């Protein structure tokens, strides 16, 4: 018996010298696993970004039409976007969380979707951003506000802080702010979003996917240079702070004072012990530590005191900056208190008091002056962007397609979120905080008069939580398996949402972007027209401004939105003469954006405005003060039956 064993041993001894092949093996294994995969992901990601950038750079923006940017994207750009989605999905499939790699990909995504467009368009986009630049410019010059002129001056915090930052930053800073705000805002939103996601979920895949889906879902264009954009960041910070520092103690850890606590603890033990399915219904009988929730970090009373101070200062800043966001914050905090997810029971009341004080005291200048027009003025905010997105679908067939596309896109995000809520519940989480936070903004519809835009504001406020729920649709449980189905679904959804985002976000690009020529025409106006002048345009909301001299030039649109465009040269001349007053002359400004705006929204071909412009230029009744291929500034020629026209241009090109 021993003999064979002995020989076996000897054989083993003999075999040993052949083993030196093995020792080198453990060393490469000691490297973090998946490093090669990470490098590959990075390569795919960079290739995707490069392809997208090359594709986007070859786009001829002059060829834009009512169907927006997405139809102009070459195959290379679309392939680039697809590669970004693939790289991200592969990162989610890795065994362990690679935070740096995931964060990098989010950065690249935001850069592709926002910064790249900001670079290829030479001039900052979006009319309302330019209007806000005008408000900032006023504060910067005078150190005062004009609450009688515009409702937004009664909530001047944003304009004040950007005037402050612009002046502290030196010359030309406002235009830079305008250009980079969408990129910076989207990056900034991700920080509190990730903090919230960490408090409300237990798995890294759901967290990072939520951030990814948030960037993709955020097409509503409220992240531009605006009070809303900044207040939204602060709103998310408040929710993040509340969920991090003011959550009730985790049942497992809290001292068991009541029978309920004891039960909860027993249930926690049961849960841990009850891998067998049989006991699970028993464990679900009492509310216990939620498998979907992360344990709150430890903190001392002094920490929480500091954080309460942070909450209040941030809320104060929101209150002085924006009309709507304070109510979104109050709704969110009220929901958190009601769901027993935040221990500060008095906080909603305190916040309501703060808002009431500000509205009744500080905005009194506006209330007393223009109570009648207040509603109208609030309503005009609606023309920012979303007015056309609301219940009515207008314009050419392509434009209607874009609008239906936006609705479908939004519906898809909502459907994913609903699926996520269901799957999270199925996975054993009784927590409904995220669902409630996603529903809370709907209270706002009743509170304000933003017209058709209201629903899109609600979507914006709900989006972080919708994205979180949507991510939980893919990775709902505590430690989700890397299920190939979930990963494939993630990839499929990303592949649909990426071009969907470009479609929805840049669907109006033909009249939301501006060219240097249009900006130059506006500068001509600011530099030359006298105080008290009226700038007349064909259609509303399509001048890049007023970004200067908001206080002494009036702006009037001849055609109101939704009305049938019926106007000829004689009519135009009459309207101009109507606006010519003792206070100052009327100046007609025609721009490229107006042509396309009229075409998209008012049912006239773009050539209609161009023809009108040509006729006016040839007519003896008008005088061309300034013209370039994209814009023209005209005044009425001085005739005996009209009032004195604008002064002759001083050295301006004709």
């Amino acid at each position, binding site marked *: 018996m021993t003999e064979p064993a002995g020989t076996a041993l000897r054989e083993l001894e003999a075999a040993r010298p052949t083993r030196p092949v093995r020792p080198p093996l453990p060393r490469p294994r000691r490297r973090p696993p998946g490093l090669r995969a990470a490098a590959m992901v990075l390569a795919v990601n960079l290739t995707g970004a490069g392809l997208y950038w090359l594709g986007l750079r070859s786009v001829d923006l002059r060829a834009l039409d009512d169907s927006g940017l997405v139809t102009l994207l070459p195959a290379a750009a679309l392939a680039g976007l697809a590669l970004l989605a693939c790289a991200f999905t592969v990162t989610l499939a890795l065994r362990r969380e690679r935070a740096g790699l995931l964060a990098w990909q989010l950065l690249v995504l935001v850069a592709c979707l926002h910064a790249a467009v900001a670079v290829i368009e030479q001039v900052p986009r979006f009319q309302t951003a330019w209007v806000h630049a005008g408000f900032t410019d006023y*504060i910067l010059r*005078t*150190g*005062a*506000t004009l609450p009688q002129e515009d409702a937004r001056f009664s909530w*001047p*915090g*944003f304009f*004040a*802080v950007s*005037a*402050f*930052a612009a*002046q*502290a*930053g*030196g*010359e030309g*800073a406002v235009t*830079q702010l305008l250009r980079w705000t969408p990129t910076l805002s989207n990056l*900034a939103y991700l*920080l*509190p979003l*990730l*903090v919230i996601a*960490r408090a409300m979920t237990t798995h890294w895949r759901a967290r990072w996917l939520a951030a990814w889906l948030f960037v993709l879902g955020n097409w509503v264009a409220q992240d531009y240079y605006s009070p809303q954009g*900044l207040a939204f*960041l*602060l709103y998310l*910070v*408040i929710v*993040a*702070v509340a969920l*991090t*520092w003011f959550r009730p103690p985790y049942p497992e850890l809290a001292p068991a004072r009541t029978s309920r606590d004891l039960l909860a603890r027993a249930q926690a033990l049961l849960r841990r012990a009850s891998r067998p399915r049989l006991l699970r219904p028993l464990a679900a009988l009492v509310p216990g530590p939620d498998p979907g929730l992360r344990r709150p*970090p*430890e*903190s*001392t009373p*002094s*920490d929480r005191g*500091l*954080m309460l101070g*942070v909450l209040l*200062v*941030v809320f*104060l*800043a*929101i209150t*002085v*900056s924006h009309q709507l966001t304070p109510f979104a914050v109050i709704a969110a905090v009220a929901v958190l208190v009601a769901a027993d997810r935040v221990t500060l029971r008095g906080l909603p009341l305190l916040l309501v008091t703060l808002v009431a004080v500000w509205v009744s005291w500080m905005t009194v200048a506006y209330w007393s002056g223009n109570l009648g027009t207040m509603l109208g003025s609030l309503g005009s905010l609606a023309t920012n962007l979303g007015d056309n997105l609301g219940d009515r679908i207008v314009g050419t067939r392509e434009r209607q397609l874009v609008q239906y596309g936006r609705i479908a896109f939004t519906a898809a995000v909502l459907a994913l979120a609903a699926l996520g809520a269901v799957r999270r519940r199925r996975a054993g989480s009784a927590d409904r905080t995220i669902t409630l936070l996603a529903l809370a903004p709907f209270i706002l519809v009743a509170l304000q008069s933003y017209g058709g835009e209201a629903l899109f504001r609600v979507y914006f406020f709900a989006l972080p939580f919708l994205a979180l729920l949507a991510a939980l649709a893919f990775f709902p449980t505590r430690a989700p398996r890397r299920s190939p189905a979930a990963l494939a679904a993630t990839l499929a959804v990303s592949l649909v949402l990426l071009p969907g985002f470009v479609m929805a976000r840049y669907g109006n690009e033909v009249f939301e972007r501006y060219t240097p020529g249009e900006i130059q025409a506006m500068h001509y106006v600011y530099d030359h027209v006298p105080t008290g002048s009226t700038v007349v345009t064909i259609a509303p909301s399509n001048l890049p401004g007023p970004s200067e001299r908001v206080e002494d030039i009036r702006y009037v649109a001849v055609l109101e939105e939704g009305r049938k465009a019926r106007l000829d040269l004689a009519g135009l001349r009459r309207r101009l003469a109507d606006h010519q007053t003792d206070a100052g002359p009327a100046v007609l400004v025609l721009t490229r954006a107006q042509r396309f705006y009229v075409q998209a929204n008012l049912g006239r071909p773009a050539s209609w405005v161009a023809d009108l412009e040509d006729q006016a230029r040839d007519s003896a009744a008008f005088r061309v003060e300034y013209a370039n291929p994209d814009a023209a500034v005209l005044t009425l020629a001085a005739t005996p039956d009209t009032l004195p026209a604008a002064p002759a241009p001083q050295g301006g090109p004709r």
Partner: protein
Amino acid sequence: MSGRAARWCWTAWAVAAAAAAALTLTGATTPLRPVATWLFLALGPGWAFVGGARPAADPLTRVTVALGLSIAIDITVAQGMLLTDSWSPRTGLLAVLAVCAVGLALHARRALRLRRTRKLVGSLHAQLPQLPSPTVPAGQPSSPGITTANGERGTP
């Protein structure tokens, strides 16, 4: 956040604050000015309050709170200048720096308290020599993580 990272952050903070103050108050025109000033305005004031906060705040949470609080402080200062009719970016920057000083003072107070507590613990330890003090077993090099009697590192 490790001690070294925190130290780096505070150094960067001080540099940004000094640069923002110097460039804005002297009215210099370099491309560095918007970068330094905006970086400081976006993160500096908040960091002065929560940069050293002890709660189990990971870097992400801390940066998030610092960002939100900084913007809120900037807005409050700018709004205050509007309300008091004293608009001037220099005044504003000085006001922001003053707010930062309050945050730093809070930190200093907390650090002072911590040191006093540690001293107290240390003296109590000295008064009770019969208690076995944490000593390093002979023959082993002392590891840097072991608590010393006066509580320099680690927790008692």
